C-alpha cells in the first residue's frame, strides 16, 4: 500500500521498548516514504510517544530502525539527531533558563538547507516579538511554535512531531496546519503523533493505528472518502 514512487526513509521493524522493567512497545512496524506525512493515531497510553522516543534513542529499545539505510537502534540520541532527524517532544521541552532566542538557537545545525531566522520569523511572527522573553513565559501556542521553529533551523528534514496541536486554540491549530502543509511542499518527511483525528486527516498521507504497543492497522488518507474505512478508523479511536 506504500506509494512505490517514494523510497522508504524510515523502516521500523519489530521494535520493542522499555521503561525500566516495563515493556511498552511490542514489535512495532512502521514505514515512512520520502516526503510522506504519516500519523500515529491511538488512545492515550497506546505507545505513540514511546515510539518516537524509541526512534530518537531516548528509551531502551531493540529491534530494527533503518533510516536512510543506517541502523539507528544501537546509536545514542546525539548521533541519531545528526542524521537529520528533528524531534518535537510531547511536553514541548522549552528551556526555562533560556530566553526565546536562545531556545531557538539551541539545537545545533545538523544539515545544510535549514531555515534562516528571518524565514522562521515570517512563519512564526510571535517568536520575533517575544525574542527576549524567558521560554516558559510564552503561551502554550507560542511554546509549541518555538518547539517546531528551533528544529526547522537545524536543517533536519525528517521530523518527529508529538501532538503539536494538543491543548491549543483552533486559530493556532490552523496556523500550525499551514506550517505543516508548507513543510510537506518543501519535501520534509514527517511522522506525526495526533489525538486530533480531524486535524490529522487534513495533513496526512497515511495513518497507523497503535494499540497496546503494536500497530494494528494502516489506513491511507485517500481511503477516508469511503464511509466504511472511516467507521473502521472511528471504531479504533472510539470516536
Amino acid at each position, binding site marked *: 500500500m506504500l506509494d512505490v514512487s517514494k523510497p522508504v526513509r524510515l523502516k521500523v521493524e519489530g521494535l520493542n521498548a522499555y521503561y525500566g522493567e516495563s515493556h511498552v512497545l511490542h514489535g512495532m512496524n512502521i514505514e515512512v516514504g520520502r516526503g510522506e506525512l504519516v500519523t500515529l493515531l491511538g488512545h492515550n497510553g497506546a505507545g505513540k510517544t514511546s515510539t518516537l522516543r524509541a526512534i530518537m534513542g*531516548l528509551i531502551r529499545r531493540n529491534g530494527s530502525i533503518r533510516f536512510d539505510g543506517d541502523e539507528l537502534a544501537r546509536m545514542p540520541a546525539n548521533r541519531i*539527531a545528526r542524521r537529520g532527524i528533528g524531534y518535537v517532544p510531547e511536553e514541548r521541552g522549552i528551556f*526555562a533558563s533560556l530566553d526565546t532566542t536562545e531556545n531557538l538557537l*539551541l*539545537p545545533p545545525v545538523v544539515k545544510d538547507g535549514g531555515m534562516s531566522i528571518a524565514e522562521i520569523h515570517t512563519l512564526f511572527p510571535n517568536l520575533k516579538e517575544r525574542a527576549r522573553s524567558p521560554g516558559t513565559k510564552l503561551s502554550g501556542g507560542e511554546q509549541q511554535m518555538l518547539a517546531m521553529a528551533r528544529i526547522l533551523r537545524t536543517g533536519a528534514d525528517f521530523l518527529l512531531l508529538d501532538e503539536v496541536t494538543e491543548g491549543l486554540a483552533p486559530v493556532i491549530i490552523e496556523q500550525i496546519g499551514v506550517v505543516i502543509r508548507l513543510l510537506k511542499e518543501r519535501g520534509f518527511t514527517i511522522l506525526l503523533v495526533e489525538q486530533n483525528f480531524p486535524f490529522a486527516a487534513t495533513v496526512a498521507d497515511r495513518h497507523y493505528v497503535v494499540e497496546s504497543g503494536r500497530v494494528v492497522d494502516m489506513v491511507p488518507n485517500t481511503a477516508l472518502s469511503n464511509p466504511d474505512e472511516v467507521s473502521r478508523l472511528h471504531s479504533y479511536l472510539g470516536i
Partner: protein
Amino acid sequence: MEILGISSQALFGQVLIGFINGAFYAMLSLGLAVIFGLLNIVNFAHGAQYMLGAFVTWMLLNYLGINYWLALVLAPVCVGLFGAMLERTMLQRIYKLDHIYGLLLTFGVALLLEGGFRQQFGVSGMPYAIPRELQGGQNLGFMFLPNYRAWVIVASVVVCASTWFLIEKTRLGSYLRAATENPKLVQAFGVNVPMMITLTYAFGAGLSALAGVMAAPIYQVSPVMGSNIIIVVFAVVVIGGMGSISGAIVSGFALGLIEGLTKVFYPEASSTVIFVVMAIVLLVKPAGLFGRTA
C-alpha cells in the same frame, strides 16, 4: 582613626582578609555549583581537588623548578585531567542511582587523596613563596595592601566574571544551562551530552585547582587545606542556592566579608557566623538566596 572603638587599621585588615577568603569561597563554590547543576552530584572531592592544585604547584616548583606563573596553567590542567578520568571511570557509572551515591563516592575519593598526601607529607603544611613579581605592597594611607593579595582578589573576580559570562551569555553556556534542565532532550538535538558532562566536571575540578594555586602562597600547602575550607564552601553554595552561578559568586564574596567583619566586632562568632547565616537562609528561603524553587 577609630570606628566603634576599633582601629581602622584592624578593621580594613580584616575586611581585606574577608575579601581574600571570599575570593576562594567564590571560586570554589562556583565550580561546585556548575557541577551540581549538570551532574546532580554534590562533589565532596572539590576540597581535595583544591588541595591537589596547591600540591601540584608546590611539587612543580620543588621537584621541577617550574614557577608560579606556569603552575597557574599546568596545575588546573593536571587536576582537570584527573577530574575527567574520575568522571569517566567512576562517576559515570552512578548517575542512574540516588544522589547520595555520588556524594559518597566523591567523599571516598577525597579521603583517599587526603590520606595519601598526609602519609607522604604529614599535616604540618609547607610554605610556598610569593612570586617575586608580586612581593611587597602598597601603602594606601588607611592600610597596607600586599601586592599578592590584591592580585588574588583581582584574578578571582576576573575568573568568576568570565565563568559567569561563559555560562550565562554564550552559546556553549546555553548548552550547559539547557542540559542542566533536560539532558536527554539536549542530546536528542545532537549534542554529545556525556562528553559535555565530562568536560564540565573537568572544568569544575580545574577551577578548584586554580584556586589551590592562588592559595599556595597565602595559606600553608597542606593535605588538610581542602577539608578545612570545603565545609564553609558547601554552606556558601547552600546560601547562594544550589546550582546558581551568580548566587555562588556573590555569596562567596559576601560571606568572606561577613566573616571578616565578625572577626572585628565579635571574634567569638567568626567561625560560626556563616553557618548561622545558612540556617537563617534555609529557614526563610529554602532554595537559597538566588535559587529557583523547583
